[in-house]
C-alpha cells in the first residue's frame, strides 16, 4: 500500500554555472501519510526548498515523480496549499481580501457573503479580528502577516499543506504563539502538512515525523525520526517528557556531525534509497536495562 503522498526517486540537477551540472539531490524517496505532520530538517542549501517547490508543482524535477492520492503531481493545484517563507501576501489587497482571494479561487460558486464569512472565520482562528483585517499587509507586523498567510492556506482546505520555513523571519515570542495556533488548527482539521524548518525544537514540537537531510550537493533524505511524544503537546511540558532530550540529542548529533559525514555519498544503483526509520522511545520497556543509550530501532522500510 502506497502512502498518501509518495515521492519516488526524485532527482534535481541544475547547471552549475561553469558548464557542468550540480546535483542538488538524487533519488530521494519518501512518503507522507494522510493527516500526518512531517517536518524536514537540513542545513542551508541542501535542497529543502527545491523539494517543496516540486511538491507544490511550481518546479519540475530533473527526474522522478511525486504521487499524491494516486495521481502524479503536474503543475500547481489548489489541492496543495503553500505558505511561502516571505508570506507572499498581495500588498495591494487588504488582509481580508488576501484571504478571500484564495477562498474565491477555491470555491468559485460560493456567494460573496459566504466567502467573506469563511475568510473572517479563519482569520479569527489565527487571532486576527476587528479592524486589523481591513488593513494592508504593509501595516501589519511580520507575525501578523505570517498569520494571514497561514489563514489563507488553511481556509482553502488543501489536501496537502506545504510550509517553507514559515516562522523563519519571526522573533522567538511571536514564533511560539503562531506555532501554538498552527498546532491548534492542525488538531481541528486533520490536515496533512509538510514543513521545512531550521529549528530543532520547533520540529519536535510540531512533527509526527522528522526527515533528516544530509548536506548538499548530492543530498539525501537519510533518516526519518518518529517523534514519540504524545499529543496534545505543549512547549513547556514536552521538555519534561523522557523522550524529548533523547530525540533532540539525536537530531543535534545528526545535524552537527553525521549530515556532513553522510554527505555526497553516491546512491547505490538498485537500492530503494528510502530513509532509515529511527524510533527513539524510552518509555517502552527495554530488553537491556543496562543500556543507557536511547533505544534505537532501525528498520529499512
Amino acid at each position: 500500500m502506497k502512502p498518501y503522498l509518495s515521492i519516488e526517486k526524485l532527482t534535481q540537477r541544475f547547471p552549475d554555472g561553469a558548464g557542468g551540472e550540480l546535483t542538488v539531490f538524487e533519488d530521494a524517496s519518501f512518503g507522507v501519510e494522510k493527516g500526518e505532520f512531517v517536518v524536514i530538517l537540513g542545513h542551508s542549501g541542501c535542497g529543502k526548498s527545491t523539494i517543496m517547490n516540486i511538491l507544490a508543482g511550481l518546479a519540475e524535477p530533473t527526474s522522478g515523480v511525486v504521487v499524491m492520492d494516486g495521481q502524479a503531481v503536474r503543475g500547481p493545484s489548489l489541492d496543495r496549499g503553500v505558505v511561502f517563507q516571505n508570506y507572499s501576501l498581495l500588498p495591494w489587497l487588504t488582509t481580508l481580501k488576501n484571504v478571500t482571494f484564495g477562498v474565491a479561487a477555491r470555491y468559485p460558486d460560493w456567494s460573496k457573503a459566504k466567502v467573506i464569512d469563511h475568510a473572517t472565520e479563519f482569520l479569527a482562528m489565527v487571532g486576527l479580528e476587528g479592524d486589523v483585517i481591513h488593513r494592508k499587509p504593509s501595516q501589519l507586523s511580520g507575525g501578523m502577516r505570517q498569520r494571514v498567510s497561514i489563514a489563507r492556506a488553511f481556509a482553502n482546505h488543501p489536501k496537502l499543506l506545504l510550509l517553507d520555513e514559515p516562522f523563519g523571519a519571526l522573533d522567538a515570542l511571536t514564533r511560539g504563539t503562531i506555532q501554538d495556533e498552527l498546532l491548534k488548527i492542525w488538531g481541528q482539521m486533520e490536515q496533512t502538512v509538510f514543513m521545512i524548518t531550521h529549528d530543532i525544537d520547533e520540529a519536535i514540537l510540531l512533527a509526527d515525523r522528522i526527515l533528516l537531510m544530509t548536506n548538499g550537493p548530492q543530498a539525501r533524505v537519510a533518516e526519518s525520526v518518529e517523534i514519540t511524544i504524545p499529543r496534545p503537546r505543549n512547549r513547556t511540558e514536552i521538555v519534561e517528557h523522557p523522550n524529548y532530550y533523547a530525540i533532540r540529542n539525536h537530531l543535534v548529533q545528526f545535524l552537527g556531525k553525521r549530515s556532513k559525514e553522510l554527505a555526497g555519498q553516491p546512491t547505490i544503483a538498485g537500492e530503494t534509497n528510502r530513509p532509515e526509520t529511527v524510533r527513539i522511545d524510552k518509555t517502552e520497556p527495554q530488553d537491556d536495562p543496562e543500556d543507557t543509550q536511547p533505544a534505537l530501532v532501525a528498520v529499512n522500510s
Partner: protein
Amino acid sequence: MGQLSLNQRAALLSVLMLIVGLLLWEAAIPAQKAVEELTEYERLTGAGEAKAGVPPPSQVLAKAWEQLSDPFYDAGPNDKGIGIQIGYSIYRVLTGYLLAALVAIPFGFLIGMSQVACKAFNPFIQVLRPISPLAWMPLALFIIGDSEASAIFVIFICSIWPMLINTAFGVAGVREDWVNVARTHELGAIKTAFTVILPAAAPTIVTGMRISIGIAWLVIVAAEMLVGGTGIGYYVWNEWNNLDLTSVIFSILMIGVVGMLLDSAFGLLQRRVTYAE
C-alpha cells in the same frame, strides 16, 4: 509665524515671491510713450514699435481677465476664445493619447510576459523612441493627408513609448512570489493578468502614462504651430504674427496651467494604485 503649518508657510512664501516677481517685471518695463509724444525722429526709426514688444504684467492680467470672462467666443477662424483653442488641443491630445494607451498597454503587457518578445522588440523600440515626434509630421501629412489626423498621429506616436516601455518593464518585474501565489490558486492566464500582474505593475504603468501625457502636452503645441487652424499652439503662433505679445504670454501661462492639471490628474491616479510592500 509660529502657529502656521509648514504648508501655510510655504503658500505664504509662494504668494510673496509671485508679488515680488510681478513687481520687478512691472518695474523693468519702461513706461510706454503715447504715439503723440514721440519725436519725428523716433517715429521714423520705428523706436516706438520695437519697444511695443514685452508687456508689463498688469497688461497680461487685464488680458487674462478679458479672455477668461468669455473663453468660448467664436468670431471666425482667426478669432476664437482661449477656451475653444485649449479645448481643441485637449481633444487632440486625449484622442492620440488614448489610442496610444490602447495599443501600448496590452502590447507592453505581452512583451513584458515574454523574455523572447522583449528582446525581439527591443531594437525597434530603441530606434523608434528617440525620434522627435515632429519628424513624423511630413510623413503623416503625406500618408494620412488630413492635418487634424496627422496632429493626432504625432501625439499617438510620442505618447506610445513611455507607456509601452513602462508597461513591459512593470510586468516583467512582477515578483515571482506573487505569480506563484496565482499559480498555486490555479488562476488562469487572464485572471492572473488582471488580479495579480496588473495591480502589481500598476504603479510602473501609471508612471509611464504620466510621463506620456506630459510629453503629449509638450508636443501638441509644436504640432499645432505646424499644422495651424486651431488649438493653443496655433493660437500662440497666430498672436505672435499679430505681434500681440500680451496674448502670447497669457497663452503660455495657460499652457502651463493645463499641463499642470493634466499631470496632477495622473498624480491622483498614481497615488491610488501605489502600494507599500
